[in-house]
């Protein structure tokens, strides 16, 4: 008959874990080490946040991108200085890659007066125009059209910047994601959407969110390229994103990238993820983005135990320093609450 179940068209990126990674990724040793460093920094930072949460020192909720480091870092690493980053709540590392300081993010989480939002908002909910970082809001999907608008601004000004943003497997159902993609595709905006398929939306497994095997198949309906990549493989993510960035920069329009990974913690610090089968965690633990990359770098001789030690120390020092400074920083004075609703 004339109708059949539609078949997936997703291009699935090949894994990048064999040798010759330098050539494959186009990255030299220092680039590779940077990827490693940022992944470690992201995990370290989020571990610090979770510790602070357990100590009752975080103001609201605390989210963790554990399992998502390769996606957050590999993607943001494909951006240039003048590109726009619109990260989501599992992408803490992307902020660092784009240049944000550990201290600023710590201050954000602790809602201090000298944070970028002066305590008015928390976590990654801030903007830093000097770095072209525009943080998310809680409403999932809502920033997608806004990111399109930044891409439109680039296009109108004939700038060569591109815009990268993210959405979860759950958030991908939100109407605004569709509207943004509809606009970005037909206008061929320099726009990249990374769908972080981490198997769960809060407690809801992907089986209750969609039928498709590859969320990158959403691209078919917009007539734009769609790719699915192993989101625990930082080099694969980087390569796929770099291609998408190049395409966007050339004026060839948007790409949807599905990065497949696992949310290794609960939805937020209050949630122990009891609804996730133990086996599922165990399977994914084997693909830990940091461990697998570390092993590769060691095998390749790019990383040594000594270097690792040094880097670990450096990261701890940074985090400790930022934590101490941030903890001692004051909350904003009460009366500030009433100010600044409007720009002057």
């Amino acid at each position, binding site marked *: 008959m004339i109708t059949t179940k539609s078949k997936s068209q997703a291009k699935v990126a090949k894994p990048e874990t064999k040798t010759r990674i330098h050539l494959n990724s186009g990255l030299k040793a220092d680039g590779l080490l940077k990827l490693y460093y940022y992944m470690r920094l992201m995990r370290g930072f989020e571990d610090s946040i979770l510790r602070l949460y357990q100590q009752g020192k975080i103001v*609201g909720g605390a989210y963790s991108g554990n399992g998502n480091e390769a996606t957050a870092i590999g993607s943001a690493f494909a951006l240039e200085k003048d590109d726009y980053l619109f990260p989501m709540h599992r992408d803490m590392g992307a902020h660092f890659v784009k240049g944000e300081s550990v201290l600023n993010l710590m201050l954000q989480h602790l*809602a201090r007066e000298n944070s970028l939002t002066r305590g008015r908002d928390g976590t990654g909910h801030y903007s830093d125009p000097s770095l072209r970082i525009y943080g998310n809001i809680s409403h999932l999907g809502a920033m997608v059209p806004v990111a399109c608008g930044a891409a439109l601004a680039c296009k109108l000004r004939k700038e060569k910047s591109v815009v990268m943003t993210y959405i979860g497997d759950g958030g991908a159902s939100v109407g605004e994601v569709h509207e943004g993609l509809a606009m970005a595709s037909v206008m061929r905006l320099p726009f990249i959407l990374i769908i972080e398929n981490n198997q769960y*939306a809060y407690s809801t497994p992907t089986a209750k*969110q969609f039928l498709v095997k590859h969320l990158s198949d959403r691209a078919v309906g917009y007539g734009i390229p769609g790719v699915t990549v192993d989101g625990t493989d930082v080099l694969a993510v980087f390569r796929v994103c770099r291609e998408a960035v190049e395409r966007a920069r050339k004026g060839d329009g948007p790409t949807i990238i599905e990065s497949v990974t696992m949310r290794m913690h609960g939805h937020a610090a209050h949630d122990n993820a009891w609804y996730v089968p133990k086996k599922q965690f165990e399977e994914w633990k084997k693909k830990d983005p940091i461990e697998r990359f570390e092993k590769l770098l060691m095998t390749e001789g790019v990383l040594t135990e000594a270097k690792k030690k040094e880097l670990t120390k450096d990261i701890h020092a940074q985090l400790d320093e930022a934590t101490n400074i941030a903890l001692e920083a004051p909350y904003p004075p009460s009366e500030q609450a*009433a100010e600044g609703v409007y720009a002057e």
Partner: protein
Amino acid sequence: MPKTLTYLEAISEGLREEMRRDGTVFLLGEDIGTYGGAFKVTKGFTEEFGQDRVIDTVLAEAAIVGAATGAAIAGMRPVAEMQFADFVTNGFNQLVNITAKYHYRNFIPVPLVVRLPSGGGIHGGPFHSTNPEAWFFHTPGLKIVAPSTPYDAKGLIKSAIRDPNPVLYFEHKYLYRHAKAEVPDDEYLVPIGKADVKRGGSDIAVITYGTGVHWALEAAETVAKEGVEVEVVDLRSLMPFDKEAILTSVKKTGKVLILHEDTLTGGIGGEIAAFISENAFEYLDAPIKRVASPDTPVPYAPTLEEYFLPNTKKVLEALRKLATY
């Protein structure tokens, strides 16, 4: 034998009773099934009612509100949960254009309930703390309730489910576990549209709802010691609101404080004040005062949020000013 329930438990119990009573009642929302809801209001529900009546939906509020509307039109009695009231903005078009206008345009009842965990005081920041009732207060066709106690919470969820109209049920997150009280064992309903005088008094009327009731009652105790008797009128229903109860209290006291957690300008308090000043002008012995949050987003830092939210102290100050006017 009355039992002690939290506000949250009272909502759960009301939902459960209605689901047992009426097979067309079903729930839909994000993470309400297996997980039992972000706040655990529907914990254990799938076990009793099955996944077909406690539906974990996709993450899409317009789809949730829309599907509830469609199912209601088709004869079911859906109860939709917004994970936080804040996310109702994503279902806004559905609610204000389809749901609210449906009966007026088509003479078909739309018996649905949207549950909206709302309010601040939990360090939720600008997107997890709002009280979005005023937008819907200005949308003809929706009913709105906002209980302040476990008793009212249970009685109103049951009435909301039985009402042939769309009812927005605002449940305050801070009250979930902070409000605890005895609730009768026997079945009861709290009628939609009827206020409840939570404390009688002859000097000043406080017209309020939700968290405001608690601040008002606390402040009333204090000023009582100063010889000022405050009447606390808990609206419970915001749409329709109980005009008679308001006028009775205003006529009795001659001085009015309107109090709500939602921001001031364009909040429900403005309408209540306008209603009073148009309909009880001759009885007023003092300007109508309002206490509400200032006109800003809800800030995140504890110092800022504390400054932002109304509280007993602010109510106290306003009462004392009114008392000496």
